[in-house]
């Protein structure tokens, strides 16, 4: 079965990412496919570059776990509307708004909300992980 997922919580303040990542691992163990992971609301902070995981949480370095998901060719899509107002921008948006830095991690892409709807429409199931 094909799944579209959405993550609504920020890293280390909500457990949305932990739940989503474990769910992704379980889906893959069962042979399911993932259409796209969409980051919405405060979930856009999952794509913020330069996160330093506290040593006590070393086994749960979220950015490394997301990198492993991206390495499998699964798209990590950050909502552009939710992202840019929170300072999560790629180099194109950095240039457009004349900002000091691009802050989006290279494993993630900045996309429109339409990509959430398109992913859901192409998938058999939609599961969201609230903050």
């Amino acid at each position, binding site marked *: 079965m094909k799944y579209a997922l959405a993550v609504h919580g920020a890293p280390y303040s909500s457990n949305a990412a932990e739940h989503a990542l474990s769910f992704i691992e379980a889906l893959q163990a069962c042979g399911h496919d993932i259409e796209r992971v969409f980051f*919405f609301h405060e979930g856009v902070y999952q794509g913020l570059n330069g996160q330093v995981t506290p040593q006590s949480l070393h086994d749960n370095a979220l950015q490394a776990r997301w990198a492993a998901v991206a390495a499998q060719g699964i798209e990590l899509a950050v909502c552009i*509307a939710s992202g840019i107002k929170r300072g999560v921008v790629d180099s194109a948006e950095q240039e457009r708004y004349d900002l000091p830095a691009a802050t989006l991690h290279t494993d993630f892409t900045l996309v*429109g*909300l339409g990509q*959430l709807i398109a992913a*859901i429409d192409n998938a058999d199931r939609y599961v*969201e992980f*609230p903050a």
Partner: protein
Amino acid sequence: MKNYLFIISRAPYASSHAFEQLEAAMVAAVFDASVTVLLRDEGVWALQPRQEGSATQQNTFAKALAALPAYEVEQLYVCRASLNKHSVSADPSLGFEPMSLAAQQRLIDSSDVVIGGQS
């Protein structure tokens, strides 16, 4: 296209959550999806008459709701029990029809996709 139910259950001015949910509903409608919006829990405050978002430097949420029919989002419902719980008298001009819990159960069951169901 699938039919989408967007549930808004957070208060309109406490966070950006409700507003961003509404944006997603409008985008789904632009994609020609059949879109239904259900307000429940603290989301019913969105129907409070005489809102003035500018008082807290925000957009007036009711104005965004009033734009939904322009996006052909015309199936608009509000949880009757939540209205009663928060003593909100819904602004009738916004066109949200009060709905019982049993009817909400049927609505969720008949929707292909529920967005915001858990938050």
